[in-house]
């Protein structure tokens, strides 16, 4: 509202949604508001035309309607022309839980992130929403804002001032690095607290900017933590988890393993409200903290296994050395002693091989 009051170039287009919510805007700024009807393709095309004439246009709808329904208009008309259009999605993730899969926005981040020119933003609380809205307004060119459904709490204590693309620390240090994007931030905070009570120290960063992504932060965390965990109310394919995986795959040198927490392959076809669906699909604070602990345990086991394999390898090397010594100093050693040494070596080899086998089975 403040932005629209100060800048008459700002326009808000809705595809016939936002009952009650948009009324104050429509009444205060009738010349800057336009309900285009239930027609998202036309809304995106009209938005491009307005933007090419100098307007700063926010398009508004819910779930997948402002993105997928008109994806080609966004790609060709908005992004290719670098048009000053800000696409606003209300109801990211499972916000519209009981309404069913048509209203679950669970692939939008992956799809929008793959488009050229566009900036992708998924705020985690009200302060972040204020931050990214201001950023979207100030940044020329296309932006995608994936919001919740309203009624979100304030998690950050103070107003945020961060440049575009920077991750925001809530808990800067820890053994495990938790990364969250969008409205699931609240659950990530609770999971972090639960982990702390169980003796697991975890850092927590929220990434309201998925594109551009804070690659430096991700690399740093991967190099200094035991585990990197992404949490998102979105498919694990192509969203935050996918984006972080891309960064880590290209990072050279030792780095922490990655755990992607989100909706696994498949539609979210269970019926229930957002909280219920988060629980079903492993996004409750308890489920997140359990996943982290299980992953830590696994990585501990893998670490132990690595050490064990390392000592086995060293043992094999030693056996080889003894054999070399035996062949070089064969004449000096009595044949009886040689026989006994050989027997001992056979035993040793057998037990090394056996251990190798059993470690593989494990």
């Amino acid at each position, binding site marked *: 509202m403040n932005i629209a009051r100060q800048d008459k170039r700002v326009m808000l287009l809705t595809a016939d949604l936002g009952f009650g919510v948009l009324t104050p805007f429509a009444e205060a700024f009738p010349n800057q508001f336009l309900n*285009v009807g239930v027609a998202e393709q036309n809304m995106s095309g009209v938005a491009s035309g307005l933007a090419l004439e100098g307007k700063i246009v926010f398009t508004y709808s819910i779930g997948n309607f402002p993105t997928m329904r008109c994806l080609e208009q966004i790609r060709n008309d908005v992004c290719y022309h670098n048009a000053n259009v800000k696409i606003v999605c209300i109801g990211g993730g499972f916000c519209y839980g009981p309404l069913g899969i048509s209203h679950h926005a669970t692939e939008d981040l992956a799809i929008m992130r793959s488009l050229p020119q566009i900036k992708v933003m998924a705020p985690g609380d009200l302060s972040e929403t204020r931050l990214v809205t201001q950023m979207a307004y100030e940044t020329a060119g296309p932006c995608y804002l994936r919001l919740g459904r309203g009624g979100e709490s304030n998690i950050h204590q103070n107003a945020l001032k961060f440049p575009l693309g920077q991750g925001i620390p809530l808990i800067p240090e820890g053994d495990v690095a938790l990364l969250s994007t969008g409205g699931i931030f609240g659950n990530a905070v609770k999971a972090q607290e639960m982990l702390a009570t169980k003796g697991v120290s975890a850092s927590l960063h929220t990434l309201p900017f998925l594109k551009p992504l804070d690659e430096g932060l991700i690399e740093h965390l991967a190099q200094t933590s035991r585990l990197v965990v992404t949490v998102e109310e979105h498919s694990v394919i192509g969203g935050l988890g996918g984006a972080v995986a891309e960064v880590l795959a290209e990072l050279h040198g030792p780095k922490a393993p990655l755990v992607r927490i989100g909706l696994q392959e498949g539609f979210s076809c269970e019926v229930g409200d957002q909280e219920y669906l988060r629980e079903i699909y492993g996004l409750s604070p308890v489920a997140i903290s359990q996943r982290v602990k299980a992953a830590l345990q696994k990585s501990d086991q893998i670490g132990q296994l690595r050490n064990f394999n390392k000592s086995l390898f060293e043992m094999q090397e030693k056996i080889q050395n003894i054999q070399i010594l035996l062949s070089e100093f064969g004449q000096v050693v009595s044949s009886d002693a040689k026989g006994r040494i050989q027997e001992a070596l056979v035993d040793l080899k057998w037990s090394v091989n056996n251990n190798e086998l059993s470690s593989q089975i494990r």
Partner: protein
Amino acid sequence: MDTRELALKIRKHAVMMTHRGRSSHVGSVLSMADIVAVLYGRILRKRHDDPNWPERDRFILSKGHAGAGIYAALAETGFFPVKWLKNHCAPGSKLCGHVSHIGIPGVELSTGSLGHGLSVGAGMAYAAKIDQKSFRVFVLLSDGECDEGSNWEAILFAAHHHLGNLVAIVDYNKLQSLGPPSETLGLEPFGAKWRAFGWQVKEVDGHDHEQLIASLDIPVECGYPPTCVIAHTTKGKGISFMENTVLWHYRSPQGEEFEAAMAELKEAIIA
């Protein structure tokens, strides 16, 4: 510039460009050549040395596959050198098959996927209306393109907002990608549909320059219904063996066919 002379030049360039670039859609360019020539030679207010002049009329080629025709018109009216046309569609060329704005002065909107231009044009016309600007917006569509539902969203929108500064021109050559619209997805009664959606409709011979000028030179006034000019045309117009055939939607003129096409255009008399 004489619009008939310009139309002939566009046709010659189109045959040459699709020949050299081994590209498609020469039939689509030939069918709209007169419409484009009348627009660029007579109707559009524009400045070739100031392509972004704020008061210019906006023109969008929504049937982006006929991009060669717009490039030819822009080059012939001074927006960029005619020699740019020579390597159309060749590796490293500035000019791709479907019209693109990047690096090309005078192109208002990149298109290629059908059913996009009218919405964007309606957005521009809406902006002109609320900002009380005096430019007009012209959008050229194909008949087959009108199968796309997005057009009908835009048609509803433009009528609802009385975008009298918006003109949709349909190049109604009655041949779409695989056959005539009547056998694909019937458009008739076509004019009545636009009228029922709240547009004023003019039906003209799309190769008759007087009729085209009379129908397109609309005053700049909003608050009236938008205008649809249904231009009845012949696909492949001007080259006898390309006329009314689907083949030349795709085929690139080569060898004897290229020679024959150029010979016909050489002999064409500007009436």
